[in-house]
């Protein structure tokens, strides 16, 4: 049954990805493509937290730090190197290495639970403050001026490494969809591996896992770093679709990632992606209508949501699906059909 579930999920995700990649751009407005690129790039960020929090039990309040580092690493690389693709590589490497160092500090110090959350939040805010105060001309890495509060305008965009041409908006959108899909596959593959199973076991009961001979620390460390690398990819795409600015590191940016995961359903991978995209769509819509303060609307939605749909969107959909399957089974039994 569990195996079958996985197949259903994989098939559905693949179909949706193909739809998003091939069919959607055919009829979507241009500005919808731009917005979708932003949504998809942030969905990778939601996925990265869903991965380490939902499966590794690592309550990270600092996923925005890796996201921001990814964005800045890309921008610095893109300004300095001849080909922007090296910037993209940096955007994965820098957050991963940073997470490894931070993770070493935390996991080998045996911090857990909410203390881990506080440290990651604190690190994010320090990065925000430091990056925010790089307004002077002295703050430059090579040719890249960090720009402080104003961010880094005019950062070169990603280009096709073969033709050296800048990616068109449609190509960027396609790239984002592909990266989201592969990030998802990567998460699935890691979780299905022996390594992933040990991580889940550690989340379930760290003491028991250690008594069975697994040293929890390196497992968590590697898992955490993978999540950071994914967040870095998200930051790189965001830098291309929007802009690199210190707000990538701020409190609101951090909190909204947690919100996406909770709304979508903690302990799933697809749910947070859905949560992220739907909440972003709501925010975008609210800014256009103008009859109610967006903060009020969003606040009410969140409160009502947590009271009525506490486990998130995906488990709700899942229940719905189960209910339908159950009904089908019953009706089939009644009509004398074969029972699965």
């Amino acid at each position, binding site marked *: 049954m569990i195996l079958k579930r996985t197949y259903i999920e994989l098939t559905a995700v693949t179909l949706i990805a193909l739809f998003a990649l091939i069919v959607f751009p055919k009829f979507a407005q241009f500005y919808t493509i731009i917005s979708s690129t932003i949504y998809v790039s942030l969905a990778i960020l939601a996925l990265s937290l869903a991965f380490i929090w939902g499966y590794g039990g690592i309550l990270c309040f600092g996923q925005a730090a890796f996201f921001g580092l990814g964005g800045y690493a890309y921008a610095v690389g893109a300004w300095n190197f001849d080909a922007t693709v090296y910037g993209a590589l940096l955007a994965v490497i820098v957050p991963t290495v940073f997470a490894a160092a931070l993770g070493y500090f935390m996991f080998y110090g045996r911090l857990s639970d909410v203390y881990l959350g506080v440290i990651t939040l604190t690190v994010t805010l320090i990065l925000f403050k430091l990056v925010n105060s790089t307004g002077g001309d002295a703050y430059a890495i090579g040719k890249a001026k960090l720009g402080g509060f104003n961010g880094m305008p005019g950062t070169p965009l990603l280009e096709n490494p073969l033709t050296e041409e800048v990616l068109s908006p449609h190509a960027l959108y396609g790239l984002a969809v592909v990266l989201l899909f592969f990030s998802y596959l990567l998460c699935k593959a890691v979780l299905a591996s022996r390594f992933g199973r040990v991580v889940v076991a550690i989340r379930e009961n760290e003491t028991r896992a250690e008594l069975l001979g697994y040293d929890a620390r390196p497992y968590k460390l590697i898992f955490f770093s993978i999540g950071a690398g994914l967040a870095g990819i998200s930051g790189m795409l965001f830098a291309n679709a929007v802009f690199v600015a210190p707000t990538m590191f701020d409190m609101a940016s951090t909190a909204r990632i947690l919100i996406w995961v909770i709304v979508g359903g903690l302990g799933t991978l697809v749910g947070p992606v859905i949560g992220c995209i739907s909440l972003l769509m709501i925010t975008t819509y*609210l800014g256009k209508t103008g009859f109610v303060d*967006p903060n009020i609307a969003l606040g009410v939605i969140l409160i009502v949501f947590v009271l009525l749909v506490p486990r998130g969107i995906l488990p709700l959909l899942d229940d719905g699906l189960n209910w339908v399957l159950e009904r089908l089974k019953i009706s089939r039994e009644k009509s004398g059909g074969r029972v699965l």
Partner: protein
Amino acid sequence: MNLKRRSVLKGGAATLGALATPGLATKAFAQDDVIQIANISDLSGGFDIYGQAQLACFQLAVEEINKSGGLLGKQLELNSFDPQSDIQLYTQYATEVATRIQPPVVFAGISSASREAIRPIFNRFNTLYFYPSLYEGGVCDRNHFCTGTTPAQTIEKLVPFVMNKFAGKKVYVIAADYNYGWISARWVKHYVEANGGEVIADEYFPLEVTEFGPAIKNIQAAKPDLIYSLLVGGNHMSFFRQWAAAGLAGSIPMFSTDFGVGNEHIVLSKEESDGMHAAYSYVHELDTPANKAFLGRMQDKFGDDAPYLNELSIAAYYAVYHWAEAVKRAGTLERMPVIEALEDGTPFDGPGGLSTIDPQTHHRICDVHIAEVKDNAFQVLETHAQLAPTDTQAVCNLIENPNENQYFTIESPDE
């Protein structure tokens, strides 16, 4: 500029305008019955204090133009977007505006970060763009028009005025820790030295700082004759409260070129804000017939909700009128003829005085009023006619280089 040639060629903003956008039919403005225009200004989030008053000015200007027969015989319709002080939404709305609405003009952006996120988009889709805000100067782009003032424009006259009035030589500069603060502080230093004074210290505060105790002690230790404030935003108002709470209100004269833009002199008490000197292209209390009439119209339209106006909000009003004036002169809504008409100056005599577009920089040449805060209001002391944005002029010449597209970090002449 030591930009790599390649990065210019492939670079973000620089070449986007040249890229063709497949599948995007450009609208012929002539076919519509109404003229759709758009503004993107923060109505919620941290920047709402600026955006809400701007929106009122946009709405009033559009209504006035419509009442007087519209433009080219058509009515204007304003599409407003609220990006909630979030740069990501700026990007989304700018793209939507440029591709779905395809207006002949967009008025958008408050912070420099928001402007730099959307300016490339309007370039790419050949959408005429007005930036209605004061900022640190330096944007050089033929598709962009700024209706705010830049630091040198206001600081140049304010510094000698205050230094003479109080016979002060030693100036202590406190500034917001970002580009605007840093660049403005350089101009303050330049003009203070040009007038025989000296900047004895400069200190920079991140925008989220609310605790100024240590800074206040440092200032007292340094004993300056004058304090130049380039503090920005709601959190920084704490400085003036804590300054007054320490019994120092009025002890050292202060001057500023952004105090009041966030309604500081209204939010702060009389004791905390009295005596501050500032210089702007517009203050609400300006005692001219044009301004009185303008405020009357504002009152008629919004009643009790009529906002208190300052340079930042009035820039929105000027932006609409400069554009409308250019459309009338060009006789068309098409972008290039309108830009060329704007480059002829398109003088507009508004509530803050006469204003013309500087063809060299696409910024405004306008009157600057030096005012002092008294009883939670500005009192105009002196008006200087027709000052040019000399700082941006030093780096930007769109007459000679019409294809320039840069956001320069302006250095003061001392460097």
